[in-house]
């Protein structure tokens, strides 16, 4: 119960802090501008290359937007505390670490989902992609599962913030690689075998495939194997992330490096 309170209060506080720094009227256009132009860029590249449909790139990049915000939000949760010099105070508290850092990441995860949904709607209109209204509920379910996997990967990255100085570097490299490796922008059958092997072990790949299946008229039951795989991969990253968080906190305390910049 206390962990839930920490998670909720921490999330609300960090969201309020965010909008104390920047107005929502400025924040959301920024947030939406990037994924909208990213979707358009790859959709037009696909048209030029004569590969796949606009729908392929629309779904791939909208899901990527969800994943990246979850990953960055979680990845920066620890680094942000370190930068504002509150990390040691937080770690001295008895609160659940997962609740603490997940609470800080939740606002960006929720923002990511809202932003991706809005980008999806805007780009659907621009590109003339029409999806049946009946598919939307299923797409939301797939989006939530994909976001879980990406956030779990973000937890692994965030835990590195207890040891490493520059988590942004890892997060940026991984987010960039996902443009290619997750199959968001290149059909998996066009990629070499070693990239496909990596694709099968990262969050998002199966989520995107499931979403494309639903957009093509399959039911959520028909893509359940993909969703289970996506959730399973997320669960593995979550367990690894929690383990790394504990390990690096222990090591940080032992070697007194928690505030090392």
């Amino acid at each position, binding site marked *: 119960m206390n962990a839930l309170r920490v998670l909720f209060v921490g999330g609300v506080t960090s969201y309020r802090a965010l909008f104390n720094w920047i107005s929502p009227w400025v924040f959301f256009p*920024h947030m939406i501008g990037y994924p909208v*132009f990213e979707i358009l860029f790859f959709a037009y590249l696909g048209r030029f290359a004569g590969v796949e449909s606009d729908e392929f790139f629309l779904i791939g990049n909208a899901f990527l937007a969800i994943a990246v915000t979850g990953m960055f939000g979680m990845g920066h949760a620890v680094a942000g505390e370190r930068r504002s010099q509150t990390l040691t105070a937080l770690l001295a508290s008895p609160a659940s670490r997962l609740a603490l850092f997940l609470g800080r990441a939740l606002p960006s995860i929720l923002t990511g989902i809202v932003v991706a949904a809005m980008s999806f709607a805007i780009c659907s209109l621009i590109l003339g992609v029409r999806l049946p209204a009946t598919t939307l509920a299923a797409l939301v379910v797939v989006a939530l599962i994909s976001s879980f996997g990406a956030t779990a990967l973000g937890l692994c990255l965030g835990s590195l913030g207890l040891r490493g100085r520059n988590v942004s570097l890892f997060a940026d490299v991984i987010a960039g690689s996902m443009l290619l490796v997750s199959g968001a922008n290149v059909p998996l059958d066009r990629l070499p075998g070693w990239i496909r092997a990596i694709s099968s072990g990262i969050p998002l790949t199966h989520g995107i495939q499931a979403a494309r299946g639903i957009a093509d008229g399959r039911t959520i039951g028909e893509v359940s194997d993909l969703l289970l795989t996506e959730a399973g991969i997320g669960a593995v990253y979550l367990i690894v992330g929690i383990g790394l968080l504990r390990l690096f906190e222990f090591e940080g305390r032992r070697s007194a490096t928690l505030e090392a910049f």
Partner: protein
Amino acid sequence: MIRAFFSGIRIHVLQFTKNPFDVSGVLLWPILYASIAYYLLDAKNDPSLLLSASLGAAVMLMWSLVVIGSSGALEHQRWQGTLELLVAAPVPFAAVIAPITIASGVVGAYALLATLAWGTLFFEVPLAIEQPLAFVVAIPACVLAIGMLGLIMAATFVFYRAAFALGIAMQYPVWIAAGLLVPLSVLPDWVGPVSWFLAPTWGFRAIQEAALGRTPWPDIAMCLLLSAIYLVAATACLRGFERLARRNGTLQLT
């Protein structure tokens, strides 16, 4: 002022090359975008298409480094509390900011080497530069023009608290409108006239035309002309925004 300008370029190039975040960006991003283009285009019958994709990906990174570098640099000055000192210094503010944007472009020029090497080694992209002299002239012309466009962006960033976020958001629109990886012929008609005002359009064309043995010199001239126009506009903007920020006491934005 000239000494401050060239010292600034040297210092900022050194800073960029010491920062692992920037170095990883220079190494990874152009290769990544070029790879996506290679896998999508699959143009074994038209090697010039892949060479153009390599060059486009490199110019994309140049623009990214310039726009993110200029926005990030101002934000860092603001966090460190040195922005007021720079504004108060007798050296014109433009001479302090321009080296940041040009240094970003210089570092971005490394992306050309990265993408060409990557394409040649792994995707059989032919490394045949038809007009080497024009190619060597086109690169600094492109860097200068993109750097000057970055200077205009930096002028607005002085006024803006979310400068870094805006810098990040400005990447894709310019990549699209300049036709760097996606030809303008695929885009809506109204994008064409917009592209004429963007330095990356002419910088990319100059490098591409030189590499493919066409007519790069008019594009190089356009880069130089645009650089001069950008410099005048950016200096005027910087002066105006600086005066406004001083008058309103909003330079620090805290």
